[in-house]
């Protein structure tokens, strides 16, 4: 009997040890933010950046998938707030307010903390952003095919006063959010059709309007490479045109807002049998930006490709320093703002491992490096799950 009790105690002890060493999904307490922390009205005051990480949907088998919002303060220290998982989850930032989304809820962090639990869980994100003209945070999900055979992309939208739900009845290949509208490139996978649409937010519903269906006489298959951007006259988006399993063309589509005339411009081409995915941007949802009439696109090889919207000239003005060429990612992310691009980088040979590099879009020079202390420890403390980066925003 005594032996039996001892054996059981030993098994229990080993179990606890194994759980803590290899399976514990809780982050290291020294880097962990509690709910009370993010509820403070001054929480964001000393925060410089925020990053979003999540496990993928297939790892949520035990309902123990997680997501993390990692905040970087002005001292270069990272702390993480843990939530439920949301594959491809993302962030909305506006005027010192951050919206965090997980599979069950939205949280508004800033002067007034608010949390809204949603009735229906979501498992895959698409895009979040802020509609300035409507004072609305919006988050769109890739919900899936409904029981009637149609496709649902559910939407949660709102502000401190409350959140509502709506549905965009399309599979979304690419998306973008401007000050007053959401833009989507809907894909009919079976028919290989691609349609640009805008989504307008009314008081209690959303209205989806067809803009144009892409001309595709060659029946090319396209993959997303950028967000949908908009200037005064045109919509722009970058897609990969499938050539074969290891080759692709990078093409820019422009659609005139009034005439709906569309143009396809080849920006680049890529072919590599060994590393076929290497040219895919670090994050296709944040990979392009419009500034002063120039469209900037940062591909997965670290190359900035520009398109002058006036002259239509394509150029490659500069490349990130020591950008990996093999397509293997270590949570690299992109954030464009005004004349700069910020890139979350990983370097195994540095003490901190992670840093943010700031490049001038005008000169191509690297103008600042921000080391991130603690991010590597945070990510390594997640045991038994693979966690991936899905969004990154600078806050000041």
């Amino acid at each position, binding site marked *: 009997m005594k032996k039996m009790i001892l054996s059981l105690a030993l098994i229990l002890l080993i179990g606890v040890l*194994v759980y803590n060493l290899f399976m514990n999904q809780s982050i290291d307490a020294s880097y962990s933010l509690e709910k009370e922390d993010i509820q403070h009205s001054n929480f964001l005051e000393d925060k410089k950046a925020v990053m979003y990480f999540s496990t993928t*949907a297939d790892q949520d088998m*035990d309902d123990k998938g997680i997501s993390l919002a990692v905040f970087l303060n002005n001292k270069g220290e990272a702390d993480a707030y843990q939530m439920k998982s949301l594959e491809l989850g993302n962030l909305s930032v506006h005027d010192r307010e951050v919206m965090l989304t997980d599979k069950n809820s939205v949280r508004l962090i800033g002067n007034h903390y608010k949390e809204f639990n949603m009735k229906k869980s979501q498992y895959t994100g698409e895009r979040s952003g802020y509609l300035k003209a409507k004072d609305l945070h919006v988050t769109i999900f890739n919900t899936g095919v409904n029981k009637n055979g149609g496709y649902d992309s559910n939407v949660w939208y709102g502000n401190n006063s409350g959140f509502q739900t709506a549905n965009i009845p399309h599979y979304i290949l690419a998306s973008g959010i401007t000050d007053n509208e959401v833009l989507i490139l809907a894909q009919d996978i079976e028919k290989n059709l691609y349609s640009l649409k805008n989504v307008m937010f009314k008081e209690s519903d959303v209205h989806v309007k067809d803009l144009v269906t892409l001309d595709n006489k060659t029946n090319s298959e396209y993959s997303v490479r950028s967000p949908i951007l908009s200037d005064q006259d045109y919509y722009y988006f970058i897609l990969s045109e499938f050539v074969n399993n290891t080759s692709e063309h990078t093409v820019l589509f422009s659609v005139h807002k009034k005439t709906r005339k569309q143009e396809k411009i080849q920006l680049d081409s890529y072919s590599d049998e060994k590393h076929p995915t290497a040219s895919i941007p670090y994050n296709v949802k944040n990979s392009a930006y419009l500034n002063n009439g120039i469209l900037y696109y940062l591909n997965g090889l670290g190359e900035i490709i520009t398109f002058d919207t006036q002259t239509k000239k394509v150029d490659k003005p500069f490349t990130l320093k020591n950008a990996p060429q093999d397509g293997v990612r270590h949570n690299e992310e992109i954030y464009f703002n005004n004349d700069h691009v910020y890139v979350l980088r990983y370097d195994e040979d540095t003490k901190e491992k992670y840093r943010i590099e700031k490049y001038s879009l005008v000169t191509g020079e690297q103008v600042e490096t921000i080391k991130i202390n603690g991010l590597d420890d945070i990510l390594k403390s997640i045991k038994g799950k693979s966690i991936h980066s899905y969004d990154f925003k600078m806050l000041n």
Partner: protein
Amino acid sequence: MKKHVVTTVLAFCLVAFSAPSAFAQSHSSSYTDEILQMQPDLKKEDLLSSVRSIAKNTGDTEEAVLKQIVKELKQDQMKASKEAEKVGTMGGKGGTVPVGNSSKGDFFYTASQTAYLNHGHVGMYYTSSTIVESVPDTGVRTISTTLRKVDQGDAQVKSVTTSSANRENAANWAYSRVGIDDYSYNFVTNRKTSHIGDKNCSKLIWSAYVLHGNLDLDVDGGLGVYPRDVRDAPDTRLIRNI
């Protein structure tokens, strides 16, 4: 070395936790407990119902069926442990990669962790740039090959050695289940369950090629088809390691 220690400890615990309980009232309940320890999301009543049905159809005893399930689960776990060690030895750097494009009817395999074990995961190419896969909560879904991230080191893209018509039809069938079939936590007897209805990732691909090509993409047969069983099936060919 660290990986070796990790693998050894995990292997030890596997054996320790898997050992039949001294308090078990019978072999059957001991096997049931073992299975539910290794597949905790599987409901006991679903397991037992499935076992009863198999026993009835095959003439085997329920205990024999349960014993077979335990054997298959342990085989899969041993594979997982060995692969974890191999990735460590080969210097896996822990990066991630978009799964990337491949041809319709091909599939990818990636390690997939739950709190309980690395059960692996497979998904099929519906088009060159669209994956169809079954994931918990959502069921059968599609996702872009650009957005689907997998761990670099032991992920693979493979093709199925059959006619292009079979590959086309198998992929079309898998896609036809999107939004219809929910997820099933039952890996242990999924070879014996209906092709139509709730299914997990390996069952989706296995059923697609059973129905369209009469292929059995399961390296070791038995009662359950696990993601690694599909990956290692003889009628498959490696396209690229990720």
